């Protein structure tokens, strides 16, 4: 049962533009959400998180938005840079484990 879903397997965006990655979840008991970034041959690295008591968290070029009523979160990257090309995973915390989405491959083109 896939409780965290990333429906876009890939996203191509021009350098300098905004990247918007989407994530939907089904379990209303999730109370903390994270985004991880993964380069080839490396483990995922933590990028940004948001608690369910907030609707927005910003860290530099990265902003995560949470819409609890819609069970939807998104990651905005502004402006996109070539080094942002990676796979981005959305994850939700339940006690003892992260539930991961399938990931979105982002390619930032010059």
């Amino acid at each position, binding site marked *: 049962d896939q409780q965290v879903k*990333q429906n876009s397997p890939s996203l191509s965006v021009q350098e300098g533009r905004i990247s918007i990655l989407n994530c939907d979840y089904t379990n209303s008991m999730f*109370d*903390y959400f*994270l985004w*991880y970034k993964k380069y080839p*041959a*490396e*483990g*995922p*690295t*933590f990028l940004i*998180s948001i*608690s369910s008591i907030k609707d927005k968290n910003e860290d530099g070029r990265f902003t995560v938005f949470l819409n609890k009523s819609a069970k939807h979160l998104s990651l905005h990257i502004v402006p996109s840079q070539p080094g942002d090309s990676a796979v981005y*995973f959305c994850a939700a*915390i339940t*006690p*003892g*484990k*992260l*539930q*991961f*989405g*399938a*990931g979105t491959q982002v390619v930032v083109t010059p």
Partner: protein
Amino acid sequence: GAGVSQSPSNKVTEKGKDVELRCDPISGHTALYWYRQSLGQGLEFLIYFQGNSAPDKSGLPSDRFSAERTGGSVSTLTIQRTQQEDSAVYLCASSLVFPGGAQDIQYFGAGTRLSVL
């Protein structure tokens, strides 16, 4: 080093053989997790260790999979009688556990790429 260390980085084995994958978590992290990522798939939770508590094995796909964590630190994931569908990248992560578990950020190793021929 300061990060999560996994060994070997690559493992090629024949179908039916047993394999052991090792994980050294970040020092001081009480929680340790194993995941796997099959080709084109997301990360699949396998098992979770927290302190001296009984591990959460709910993600293990079959009884051919087992894991141990010795002394609350190093962990070994063992796959017996490997099958071709076991081919994947096996990732280990560790974390501090805060009261309430609200900010349980996991730090990942680079993974072990297992290929079963």
